[in-house]
């Protein structure tokens, strides 16, 4: 099993005819994902990487029974694309697009909730379950099937870490990139609760960063409900307050969102905290060994 996606996931690519859309359609296919449709207004009837393109999501869903969407459309149109997906009955939308105003994301989030759909992102690399499906842009090379769940607010840092896990001879059950924006559709608590229920995940790696209190809430959840070992890393110990560190959400504002606060919370909740990213694979291996020894 895996989380959120599996071998039956049928992916629609919104914005498939754009450069990013086309490149990642190919990459998702190479990962083994069933990419069944693309949608770009006015490009209905075209084909991208062998995938049929439709004018609207509704038509794409009707023709192909797509049940997940990955959204590459530019920020000013991303809200409309998400609403279109949700209205067409798509239950899972991965929003890769960066720079979506948070005011837009607030309505996107609550509208999706009203319609019973889940958003991953925005400004995220998406989800991948090795051997099953990838919905997003995480590089294929880093993966190897296994029993480690990974959830992260970062993109490349996650690739680095996942890659390290692979080089350590371990593999991943599912990797979820939550996205670097201040408002995301799925947060640590949501992701942890999914991993808690997943029989194929033994250990979870949690990669946080400065800004907001999602890691602290994750820590509360771990203490109260999470039964699997957690290895955590938080980026931004050296970041100054008041500066956006690359991600819209990575900012220490009014004394809140420091790495120190997050590290203390996670440690207090029993997570094993890595001081350096390259320590993570070893800490994961230790946790797995402990589980075997039990």
């Amino acid at each position: 099993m895996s989380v959120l996606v599996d071998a039956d996931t049928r992916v629609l690519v919104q914005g498939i005819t754009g450069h990013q859309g086309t490149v990642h359609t190919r990459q998702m296919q190479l990962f083994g994902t069933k990419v069944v449709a693309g949608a770009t207004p006015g490009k209905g009837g075209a084909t991208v990487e062998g995938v049929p393109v439709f004018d609207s999501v509704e038509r794409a869903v009707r023709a192909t029974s797509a049940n997940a969407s990955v959204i590459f459309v530019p920020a000013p149109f991303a809200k409309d694309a998400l609403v279109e997906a949700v209205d067409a009955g798509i239950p899972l939308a991965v929003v890769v697009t960066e720079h979506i105003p948070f005011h837009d994301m607030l309505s996107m989030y609550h509208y999706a909730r009203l319609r019973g759909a889940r958003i991953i992102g925005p400004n995220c690399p998406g989800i991948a379950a090795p051997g099953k499906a990838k919905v997003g842009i995480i590089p294929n090379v880093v993966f190897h099937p296994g029993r480690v769940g990974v959830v992260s607010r970062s993109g490349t840092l996650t690739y680095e870490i996942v890659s390290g896990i692979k080089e350590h001879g371990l593999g991943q059950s599912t990797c979820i990139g939550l996205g670097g924006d201040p408002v995301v559709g799925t947060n640590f608590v949501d992701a942890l609760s999914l991993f808690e229920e997943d029989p194929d995940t033994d250990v979870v790696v949690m990669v946080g960063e400065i800004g907001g209190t999602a890691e602290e809430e994750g820590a509360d959840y771990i203490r109260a409900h999470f039964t699997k070992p957690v290895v955590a890393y938080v980026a931004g110990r050296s970041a100054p307050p008041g500066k956006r560190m690359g991600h819209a959400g990575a900012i220490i504002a009014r004394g809140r969102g420091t790495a120190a606060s997050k590290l203390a919370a996670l440690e207090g909740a029993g997570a094993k905290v890595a001081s350096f990213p390259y320590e993570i694979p070893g800490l994961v291996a230790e946790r797995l060994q402990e589980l075997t020894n039990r």
Partner: protein
Amino acid sequence: MVKLAEWRGKEVFRKYAVPLPRGAVARSPAEARSLVDSAAVPTPCVVKAQVLAGGRGKGGAVRFADTAAQAEEATRAILGMEFKGEKVKEVLLEEKLPIARELYVSLTLDRSLRLPILMVSAQGGVEIESVAEGGLVKIPVHPFIGLAGYERRQAVSALGLSGAAAKSLDRLLSSLWRLFDEEDAELVEINPLAVVGDSLVALDAKVIIEDDASFRHPEYAEVRDDRTPLEEIAREKDIAFVQLDGNIGVIANGAGLTMATLDVLQQSGGRPGVFLDLGGTDDPKKVTEAFLLMAMAKPKAVFLNIFGGVTRCDTVANGLVAAMSQVPEGERFPLVARIRGNNEAEGTQILERAGVASLKGLKESVEKVVALANAGAPLAGPA
């Protein structure tokens, strides 16, 4: 972040009919004098430095004047200041009002609730961080409803207002919500919000407009902010760039990886001086631009740490090589590179051909760049 100076924030307040003291901006002592002479600004008045940093009162950046001559003098004193690193270019002159109480109100985002949040406090006029938890009332606002009547009543009650003052707050909060929503604000804050007689007046204005919403708000394109000149250039080139107080520059791709690289540097005894996040790019020109920008920050050493996912290693390498020749002789710096992932082999080869070795491990790379920076290696081209 588009942080508006007080006077600019108050222009936005005026658009939404938020009550303000009478006042005007002056850019010279003479202008200040004539504003008072012409009664555009009534006396006694307050003269306030228009800077983005807080704590102006204690820092001497706010003065009082009873006459036009005093206003001129106060303006001269303030315009000469440098306040927390910011040069003061404008002052705001405003009538001095008989203040009964000072309150606090703000609207911002609650990331955990995924809702805007209204915050009010009866203890205005001080840094809100210094107000104890119980002194600040937080009211989440649902975007599908807007700031509801009952929520405004909650705020009125928390601030202990009644009668005309309560009505005045109710109207003001409706205005503030519309402003927050329609202007795509990250923060709207009035501190202090003064009770003057039985109505409310916004003595200060702090408005931050969301950068990502700028496509809907061309009107804020000209707003000066508290970015450094290099950060300003980076912003125009769409490169995430933050200047820090150390001497080692980091170029990486992705915010998390760049932050983690800075952290490892610092934990290994280095002093990060520049955060440069290339983002996901497959344009070698952007890499070249980023590299030249880094050179302008005059680092002692630079660490390039790339994990190629969307970005291809060969693209980065090509951009880098193109840039290296363009850095003026005197501005060159030692470079440590680590590029992995997508097209790693090609990228490594391109760098090697240009004389740059790509290391494998993060630890060894960091140790090398820290050593180079600490050694004060000769600034004569990439190491």
